[in-house]
C-alpha cells in the first residue's frame, strides 16, 4: 500500500522500529523496548497461493485470503533497516516516483538516506521487507518493500509516530506485506510509548483511504478540520532571515 507525496501524486506512509529509535525511547524512564527482531510471516507458516517467480511473470494474480492477510506461496521477513539497505530503499523510492512519472521531484539520494537515517540523531528510521533468494525479482532484488517513519509529538497526547513511506514492489502486492509493515510500525511505536500513528493521504486516493479506514484509523482533517500547511523555497528562506 502506498500513498504519494507530491502534487497530484499519493503520499507514502510507513513506520517501523529500529535500534536507534529503541535507544531513543530507552532514554525515557520506565519504558521497556523490544529486542532486535527478525520476523517471518505469522505463525511461521507458508502462505497459500502462487507467487510470481523471479524469472517469469505470474499467469494469474496472487489471491488474498478472506481475512485479507497473505495468501501467497512465499516467505517474507521484516527487519530493521541498516545503512546497507539505503541503496535498495533509494531504488524503491525512485521506482515509485518513476511509476508516477514524477521522478524529477526526488531530490534525496542514497547518500542522503545514509547520512540522515543512520547518524547519531537520525531524522528517520526504516524497516525493510525481504523475500528469500528463490523469490527474488528478475533484476535480482530480495528487498522488495520498506516503511519509513520518525517520531513526532502531540502537545496534547505526547509521543507519536509518523509514517512517511510505505511501499511494496508491484509484483509482491496482495500478499499482506504492506499490512505487515504497517502493523510492525504500529507495534514498535507502542513499544516506544507512542499513542498515535499519523500519516497523510490524498483525498482522491480512495482505495488507500478506504484501506486505512478499514484498518481502524480516522480522518483528522475531516473530523477535526485541520489543514496541512507547508512553507518552503523562497518563502522559507525569507522566514529564516535572522
Amino acid at each position, binding site marked *: 500500500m502506498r500513498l504519494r507525496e507530491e502534487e497530484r501524486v499519493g503520499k507514502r506512509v510507513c513506520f517501523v522500529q529500529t535500534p536507534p529509535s529503541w535507544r531513543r525511547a530507552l532514554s525515557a524512564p520506565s519504558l521497556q523496548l523490544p529486542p532486535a527482531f527478525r520476523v517471518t510471516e505469522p505463525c511461521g507458516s507458508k502462505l497459500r497461493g502462487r507467487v510470481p517467480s523471479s524469472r517469469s511473470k505470474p499467469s494469474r494474480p496472487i489471491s488474498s485470503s478472506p481475512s485479507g492477510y497473505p495468501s501467497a506461496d512465499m516467505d517474507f521477513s521484516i527487519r530493521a533497516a541498516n545503512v546497507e539497505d539505503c541503496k535498495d530503499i533509494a531504488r524503491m523510492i525512485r521506482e515509485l516516483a518513476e511509476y508516477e512519472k514524477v521522478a524529477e521531484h526526488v531530490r534525496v539520494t542514497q547518500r542522503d538516506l545514509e547520512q540522515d*537515517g543512520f547518524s547519531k540523531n537520525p531524522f528517520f528510521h526504516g524497516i525493510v521487507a525481504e523475500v528469500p533468494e528463490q523469490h527474488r525479482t528478475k533484476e535480482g532484488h530480495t528487498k522488495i518493500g520498506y516503511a519509513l517513519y520518525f517520531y513526532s509529538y502531540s502537545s496534547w497526547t505526547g509521543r507519536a509516530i509518523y509514517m512517511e513511506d510505505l511501499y511494496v514492489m508491484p509484483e509482491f502486492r496482495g500478499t499482506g506485506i504492506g499490512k505487515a509493515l504497517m502493523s510492525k510500525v504500529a507495534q514498535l511505536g507502542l513499544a516506544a510509548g507512542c499513542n498515535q500513528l499519523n500519516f497523510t*493521504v490524498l483525498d482522491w486516493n480512495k482505495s488507500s483511504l478506504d484501506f486505512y479506514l478499514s484498518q481502524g484509523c480516522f480522518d*483528522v482533517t475531516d473530523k477535526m478540520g485541520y489543514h496541512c500547511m507547508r512553507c518552503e523555497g523562497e518563502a522559507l528562506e525569507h522566514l529564516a532571515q535572522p
Partner: protein
Amino acid sequence: MDFRVRAATKEDCKDISRMIMELAVYEKMPDQVEISHKELERDGFCQNPFFECLVAEVPEEQKSKEGFTVVGYALYFYTYSTWRGRAVYLEDLYVMPAFRGKGIGKGLLCKVAEVGRKKECVRLQLSVLDWNTPSRDFYAAKGAQDLTASEGWHFIRFDGQNLDKLANEAPKD
C-alpha cells in the same frame, strides 16, 4: 514591547503546559489535552528528545496580570521527506491574547525557521484549523501553502484501541 525568544529549559515546562491548555481552549478542544508538564519534561529534555521548544519572554515590568513573563511558545520537531529530505514540523505556536499583535508570534515562527535552516531543513510544515481565519491569514502572509485546500491532503490517525489492534496484527518476532 520588549521580548526575547530563547530555547526552553526544563523549568519552563510548567509555563508551556499552561499555555498548551490555553491554546486547546482557543481551539475549542480543552478535553483533548492529556499530558502535563511532567511528560514535557521527560520527552523534551531527555537524551534523544521528541521535540524542541522555544519560549517568548517579556521583562518583569511587562508581565501579564497573573504575573507570567513567559507569554508565548513554539514547539517543533524534525521530520523527513523521502523526496525532499530534512524538514521541521511546527506542532504548536501560541502567544497569550494580551501579547498578540506585537510581533511575538512572528518572532517565534522565524526563529523556528532559522533553527530548521541551521539543520538544513528544506521545509517547515504545520497544521491549522479550517475555521481559524486569523491563523490561516497569518501563515498565508508568510508564504505558507494550504496543501489540504490546494492538493487534497488529509491527516489520518490511528489511536486508542484501533492502534492496539493494528499493532497486535504485526508479524511475530
